[in-house]
């Protein structure tokens, strides 16, 4: 249990710092702003109570906001996605519920499940975030384009991270 907490804390620090110090300053192309810190929220355990997930999301958003100088923006988007997470999980749950020891990773849940989960998760967050950044629906389509393109960039990073840092169970 303690081990688990340490693991999640390390993931939190690493991802928020990577987000704030590296990704924020990486200009791959216009419209591409990946937000890898979402991976931390995605990987919280299945059985964590929803209110705790939401609070953690709120706090995570705050730290990202400090780096981006946008107090409130990431907080709002993360809280929303933290709130929706339990619903997404319920929607995607297997017929006989999640296994006790399973983690929300590709290795445990398979590609189809994981991509759907991450896709919905990232879309909700990015949609909320980019429209809050504009704070209006003018330039609706160009903002929507940013949501999609940045969402794909985030997805790519998330998938690559899954490959790099999680060993397959079968190999063990």
């Amino acid at each position: 249990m303690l081990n688990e907490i340490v693991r999640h804390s390390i993931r939190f620090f690493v991802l928020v710092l990577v987000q704030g110090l590296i990704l924020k300053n990486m200009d791959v192309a216009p419209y591409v702003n990946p937000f890898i810190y979402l991976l931390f929220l995605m990987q919280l355990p299945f059985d964590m109570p929803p209110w705790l997930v939401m609070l953690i999301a709120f706090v995570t958003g705050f730290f990202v906001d400090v780096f981006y100088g946008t107090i409130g923006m990431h907080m709002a988007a993360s809280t929303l996605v933290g709130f929706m997470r339990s619903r997404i999980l319920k929607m995607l749950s297997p017929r006989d519920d999640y296994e006790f020891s399973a983690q929300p990773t590709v290795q445990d849940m398979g590609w189809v499940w994981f991509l759907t989960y991450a896709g919905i998760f990232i879309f909700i967050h990015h949609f909320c975030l980019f429209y809050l950044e504009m704070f209006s629906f003018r330039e609706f389509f160009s903002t929507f384009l940013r949501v999609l393109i940045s969402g794909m960039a985030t997805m790519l990073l998330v998938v690559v991270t899954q490959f790099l840092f999680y060993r397959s169970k079968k190999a063990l």
Partner: protein
Amino acid sequence: MRNLLVFLVRNYLVLLFLLLEGLSMYFLVQHNVFQRAAAVSAANSFTGSIYETRSNFTAYLNLKDQNEMLNHQLAALLNRDRGSFIAFNTATTNVNDTVYRQRYQYLTAEVVDNSVSLRSNYIILDRGSKQGVAPDMGVIGASGIIGIVREVSDNFCVVMSVLHKDTKISASVKKDGTFGQLLWSGGDYRTADLIDLPTHSKIANGDTLVTSGLGDAFPQGVAVGVVKNFEKKAGDKTYTVEVQLTTDFRKLKHVLVIKDLFREEIQQLKQRVIESDNNAK
């Protein structure tokens, strides 16, 4: 009462969500749609020092370009130095100039944080109120305009870059002086749009655009960009111009903050007019 409690317990998740979301929105709006918040992050010494450390490292990466730019600047200044002139007419004497008075002062600063890929980009400089920076001052670089100071803390200031959804800068066509508003519509950080340019302007592709000197942030004649393309959209009475910005926002390091020495006088004058207008109503 019991029903209320049951309702609260049953919907605690939704209520907590509304509370946290409301709090976020409050921060967002309270901070004047996050412009002030930008100062919060620059001002607090935690992120401020992290940014500075990082910028110390990254400074080495584009030293070559920076040196070249500084050299150009130096050359331009030396060209104006008295040492580069020779006296043609030995009969003149120096007079204390009462015709011209200095209006703008320049303060050097270094960029500690910058972005170009967001829809609203901010630049953080290592100068603040202790060094004489105040909100609404203009910021320029060796190759052209950069932005306008929004917030200052003791030792840092946050600049709203030209690459920001709310930045509007008055820019004019250098050869005939007709002017319009410079806006950035997102996307490419190298191009912006000049709108509301009157159609009697004799604009052509390749023309230089400079600041018009209207408003108090920039003196007249600071480079803005080059006309890439222009058109009169159907139904419009003005040209919309695609502008190639002269400043490379990805390579900012050494910049100048402009202080308008007459700003206060102009502000007071404006204030008086506004007041008398209000009284007349």
